[in-house]
């Protein structure tokens, strides 16, 4: 059960002609609350998105490395420990360093409203707070994230 690389992928590779949207669902930091991340991974998968789930306890470096390797179009991050103000921007910053700023970063979790403007300023495209309908997140991904040609 224990694996060296903690990523799991769903969905087939290429849809007809155009590649499917590929989203990495990531759990940065030490918190173990993965109910939301797993539900969103399933909902995106059921909506035809190719999903790669990192598993828990990832450093920003691990997430960015995996995202680059898997050539994803977006990263959805989930944090419920309060460490979002450090870890979300860190992922964006590392992506920029790797010249992968095209990857859309969005997130969710227990995040006070007051923290959202700061996170957006630092390049997090969208924050979803508790109670957001899955349909809204799926719709956002369909609208905002385009697969690379």
């Amino acid at each position: 059960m224990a694996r060296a690389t903690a990523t799991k992928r769903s969905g087939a590779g290429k849809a007809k002609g155009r590649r499917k949207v590929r989203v990495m669902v990531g759990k940065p930091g030490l918190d173990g609350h993965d109910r939301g991340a797993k539900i969103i991974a399933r909902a995106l998968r059921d909506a035809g998105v190719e999903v790669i789930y990192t598993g828990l306890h990832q450093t920003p470096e691990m997430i960015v490395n995996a995202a680059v390797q898997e050539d994803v179009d977006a990263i959805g991050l989930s944090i419920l420990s309060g460490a979002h103000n450090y870890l979300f921007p860190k992922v964006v910053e590392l992506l920029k360093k790797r010249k992968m700023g095209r990857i859309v970063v969005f997130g969710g979790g227990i995040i006070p409203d007051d923290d959202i403007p700061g996170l957006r300023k630092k390049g997090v495209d969208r924050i979803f707070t508790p109670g957001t309908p899955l349909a809204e997140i799926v719709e956002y991904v369909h609208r905002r994230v385009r697969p690379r040609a």
Partner: protein
Amino acid sequence: MYARKKKEKKAMSPEKRKRFSTVSDEEVAALYTPADLEGHDFLKEIGFPGVYPYTRGIHPSMYRSRLWTMRQFSGFGSAENTNTRYHYLLSQGQTGLSVAFHFPTLMGYDSDNPRASGEVGMCGVAVDSLRDMEILFRGIPLDSITTSMTINAPSAILLAMYIAVAEQQGVSPRKIGGTIQNDILKEYIAQHSWIFPPEPSMRIITDILAYCSDHVPKWNTISISGYHIREAGSTAVQELAFTIADGIAYVQAGIEAGIPVDKFAPRLSFFFNAHMDFFEEIAKYRAARRMWAIIMRERFRAKDENSWKLRFHTQTAGVTLTAQQPINNVVRVALQGLMAVLGGTQSLHTNSMDESLALPTEQAVTIALRTQQILAEESGVGNSVDPLGGSFLLEKMTNEMETRAMRYIRKIDEMGGMVEAIKRGYPQREIIDASYHYQRLLERGEKRIVGVNCYPSDEEIPIPILKIDKEVERKQIARTREVRRKRNARRVASRIDALKDASLSRVNLMPVILEAVREYVTLGEICDAFRETMGTYTDPAMY
């Protein structure tokens, strides 16, 4: 004879829905009658409180003799911040302490480890070394208060630190009382604060069982927890079944380690969730008591009555708190607290209304504590023991809960026990499926949450939010580095070597850990030593 007459049935108004079900989506009938309990023996299965199989409670007079312990889980920022909160809570009538550690402590990292960046003091209190523990319990006499510590993978280390602080206060380990969660199996299943693989983790646990039964006899060595299983999205039956199955695994491990069952089983306790469905929850607690009593007596042949009694702590369900219209959460928590009391809990944590947004403010915590005090002092629910016992509905639900949970337990037994089931991902998969099923019901409006998918409000009443000072991280790192500078480097090195040697041999780890913490070897250093010898566990990343 007990069914409704045809004429009465005809006169009934059409029902709003085709099917009524609990929050776990178990169908509930319109009416329960004695027919639902046919073939059941009242004296044998329900009986009297304080008497086997304890369906109605483990004490004959329950809250008439002693109220439940009001134990609010609390920890944030530095040891100083949290110590202040403890003194405040005790001054407000709280009767026990419960420590919330920050994630780096739960995962076995010191605050200056790069993996701790951004997390220090955020979700609990930062404890790296004995120094932090000394500050955390400053001015709190450990011979007269009991403390529960939510700590799992590094539980032996935190228990050792607590013993060391007690010794500094002149209190013998034989006198201290409290609980370490120390339930690693549910970490793999649900809460996910693991460090080592299952087998060495189970060895640490049996070492603790053996050590405490000899040296810390009043300590609750494992708090076998359904709480996190439920929070991760399980149904009530799954919470019950997986928790009892975990308990079976610990008892089995203790016996296999050569400890007589009646020597350690009386110090095992349980921890359940109080979710939103009133009768389903109360039935769960009652079924749990009966199941455990039967399992301990018949399966494990325990002779001591205290080995049969399931004592439990309850916490209201964090997942039911809404970020929308958060003041409504006060009402949810009051109902959940009531369920726990009607279910015969030994201690209770009531959540604060603002925990869907951040860690709770002092004001929110006070309301949560007052909620328990209102239940205890004003509502009258504690005047009579198991006041809902005998209700056709509740007894039927209790029976069904037990039957369904036993079905799961048999399945896990067939897999070779819980450790094997976890390795196959079985309970993990069941929980993911249940949580996704519930989410779909919610999205379709078949389950409703006020303020979320019905009765929304545009006018949100803002409530204050607790912010953790960024200085906490810097100061904590400075303190831990100072501790490392000031200690005896030679003795520290030899203690770390001793830890590695002990972990590779079969000696009990507890005395070796205790010697290490007394020399201010840090939590991260002890865990690193064990990581080297025991290996680590990685998330299988299922979804």
